[in-house]
């Protein structure tokens, strides 16, 4: 995949030299880069790998998940705070994940933390078990279990 | 604004003084820290407050806020940091060797 990126850079550079302007312009280089993206997208099957910007897309997607989770959770917590009759049942529950490796675990933990009503408190030394504090354990557990597959998939799209 | 800030400075100084008059070394150190905060604010207040723009020539147009006190405070901040760091370490070294953080117990042996 880095090869694709290097190639893209090369195309951009080529583009800039072909333009043969008086001075070095960032905009020229940038436009060359865009041209490169287009070319590589067309040709990426020749490399035998995915189009490298696909990963970028999944990252962006992940970020959107992040943002929407955060928005939802903040709305939820606001409701909970402002609810005059506060009768939630907080608690700590566990979740075992399929994900491996520092990056995956971290990302998932952060997502879970931003998920409405839950905060990851501990990861076990093996790195496959989350201890999660929930604002309202019944509801949060359900929420987490519902969205967690979605998260795992989104993360794996980026990392694998 | 000046009156407000100076009043605040006065409160900070009073608090700092009270802390410094303590027996406990950490309180004293915190007192000097609070005192330094007050002093920094005071230097800034002594140049006219809120008059003029940020003293960045490319960022804003004249008039600029008085830049000299700002430079002085910067120096003062760094120095108070250095001093605080030293005195903290001194305090805990003293605690380790003499076994107390209470200055009343650090009076020292009397002569005669």
């Amino acid at each position: 995949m880095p090869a694709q990126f290097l190639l893209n850079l090369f195309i951009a550079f080529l583009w800039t030299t072909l333009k043969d302007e008086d001075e070095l312009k960032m905009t020229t280089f940038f436009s060359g880069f865009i041209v490169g993206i287009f070319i590589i997208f067309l040709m990426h099957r020749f490399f035998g790998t995915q189009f490298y910007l696909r990963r970028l897309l999944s990252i962006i997607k992940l970020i959107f998940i992040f943002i929407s989770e955060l928005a939802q959770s903040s709305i939820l917590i606001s409701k909970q705070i402002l609810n005059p009759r506060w009768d939630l049942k907080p608690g700590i529950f566990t979740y075992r994940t399929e994900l491996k490796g520092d990056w995956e675990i971290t990302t998932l933990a952060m997502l879970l933390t931003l998920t409405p009503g839950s905060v990851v408190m501990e990861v076990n030394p093996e790195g496959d078990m989350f201890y999660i504090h929930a604002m309202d354990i019944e509801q949060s557990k359900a929420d987490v279990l519902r969205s967690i597959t979605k998260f795992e998939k989104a993360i794996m799209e980026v990392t694998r | 604004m000046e009156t407000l800030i100076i009043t605040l400075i006065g409160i900070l100084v009073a608090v700092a003084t009270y802390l410094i008059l303590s027996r406990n070394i950490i309180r004293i150190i915190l007192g000097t820290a609070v005192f330094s905060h007050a002093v920094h604010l005071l230097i800034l207040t002594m140049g006219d407050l809120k008059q003029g723009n940020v003293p960045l020539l490319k960022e804003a147009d004249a008039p600029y806020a008085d830049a000299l006190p700002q430079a002085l405070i910067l120096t003062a901040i760094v120095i108070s940091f250095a001093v605080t760091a030293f005195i903290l370490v001194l305090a805990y070294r003293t605690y380790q060797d003499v076994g107390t953080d209470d200055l009343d117990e650090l009076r020292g042996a009397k002569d005669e």
Partner: protein
Amino acid sequence: MIEKILLVSLTLFAISIAIALFRIIKGPSMPDRAVALDMIGVNLISMIAIISIVLKTKAFLEAILILGILAFISTIAISKYIERGAIIEHKSDN
């Protein structure tokens, strides 16, 4: 009008900080205070951003990032202190 709204926002942020300060003073536990301090830091970030708009200057945008960095570092330090009594370890366990 814009400025008025901004000033109201600033005041609201200041009130949040005041409330958080109350939590710092009251506690009861150290983590409570740490949470509140973290919150104060975050609110200060917002205030700097708004003040930058009010003062029409870009000079304080660095301060936003710095405050973000430092609030984070402080939180780490405080939480480690609460958790382990030492904020920097010779050699971590794992």
